[in-house]
């Protein structure tokens, strides 16, 4: 294990400081702010609403449609040209797959629930932050779900299995493996699993077990964000 000390001083299983809030975009049916380290995601849910084009409509169930997008000033280098690219399209698709399994789609036939996630600043773990934010926003919107989905990246840096890689770890000058994971809470089942880099099977299993613990921490934060929204009385009506 060559990588003993993490670049930012964290323990191997330690997540970066996190923050989450629900209901921060008044126009949306549900919304959330999610921050992990220096990665921030805003999520807004609109729907169920009419689905166009019509041929996509399914009389038995609705669909969930995620739209992931990085703001032009959110990349770690040059400005990102607006307009989406293949990476954001792929992330949108894996977000759909990560969230749909827990949603009761039969509750809104022929309709769509749109989930928009936009990031003003990033430092790795973006698709995971997007999914965690989206899950809060979906609950905030009153969409019927069996469970919340929590997501975080795990991986290995130079032979050491770690949780929540930051950009400098993803770019570390050694063999690195970056594994975004999303899980349900009750059944501990995986709904998102991707990997790039190199890893042994043994380390991969170790990483997934670490992901169980890590997503558990994300879950606690998501629950807190949702319940906090209703914890006080709202009195500013002057």
């Amino acid at each position: 294990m060559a990588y003993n000390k993490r670049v930012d001083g964290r323990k191997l299983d330690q997540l970066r400081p996190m923050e989450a809030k629900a209901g921060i975009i008044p126009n949306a049916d549900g919304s959330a702010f999610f921050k992990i380290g220096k990665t921030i995601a805003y999520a807004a849910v609109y729907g169920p609403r009419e689905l166009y084009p019509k041929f996509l409509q399914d009389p038995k169930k609705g669909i969930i449609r995620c739209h992931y997008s990085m703001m032009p000033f959110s990349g770690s280098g040059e400005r990102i040209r607006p307009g989406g690219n293949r990476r954001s399209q792929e992330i949108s698709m894996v977000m759909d797959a990560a969230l749909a399994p827990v949603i009761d789609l039969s509750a809104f036939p022929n309709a769509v629930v749109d989930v928009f996630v936009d990031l003003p600043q990033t430092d790795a773990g973006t698709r995971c932050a997007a999914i965690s934010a989206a899950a809060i926003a979906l609950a905030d919107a009153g969409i019927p779900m069996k469970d919340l989905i929590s997501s975080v990246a795990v991986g290995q840096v130079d032979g050491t299995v770690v949780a929540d890689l930051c950009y400098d770890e993803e770019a570390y000058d050694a063999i690195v493996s970056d594994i975004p994971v999303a899980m349900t809470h009750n059944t501990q089942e995986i709904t998102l699993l991707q990997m790039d880099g190199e890893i042994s099977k043994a380390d991969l299993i170790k990483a997934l077990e670490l992901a169980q613990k890590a997503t558990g921490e994300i879950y606690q934060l998501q629950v807190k964000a949702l319940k906090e929204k209703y914890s006080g009385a709202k009195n500013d009506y002057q």
Partner: protein
Amino acid sequence: MIINKETIAELARQGKRLDGRALTDYRQPIKIETAISWTAEGSAKVQIGATIVMAGVKLAIEKPYNDTSDEGGIMVNAELLPLSSPEYEPGPPGRKAIEVARVTDRGIREAKALDLKKLCRIPGEKAWFVTIDIITINDAGNLFDAASLAAMAALKSAKFPIVDETTGAIDYKHKTNQSLPLLKEPLGVTVYKVNGSFFVDPSTEEEQACEARLTVTSDEKGTISALQKGGDTPLAIADIDKMLDLALEKAKFLRKELTKALKQ
């Protein structure tokens, strides 16, 4: 879905507004935060009532244009995110986004707010190009004013990144202490006319009931650098006179808010 158009017009005739505000009042709270994006060279988040808008400044080194070989450049882009309203769909900027971008752009450009010559590094070869991206988070009306305020706050708080003098490479992760060469602080105020009354800071419903609007961009001295009239109804010169007065007065108010925020 809801538009209380007739009621807004009737109340306007009486000099009143749907939410009980005075015609010349901005919504509360007004919050201006800078450095909200560590990846941007300068950034700001502005909240006016329920409207929330972000602006981010990115700098790049490029070859100057042929006809201005000793100048850098500036461009303003705006995205009305589907995140921010049920009315917006994913896709390229629509007319509303383009108008917000161009009105904000003209206000800054025509005021010569940025000393473009100071952005030049090597005449004819390299100059700084400044791009401001305005992004809506919650559109509850009055994007023009919020965008202008956010753009100015982002520009004022922006810092140049470190440039490796040998390779010319920009180290975006480390900033210098050097601010952008800002000569002026133009801010836009949009005045709306409905049923004989003039008001500022419309909610979404008030915008939809609008007959005509005038965005006036002015600097600290009260010099007007850009104008944009919108809406289907024509304006008399007497109207414009009144709207200019109101806009210049409210620009002072917004400028005070901006100064207050940047001090913190």
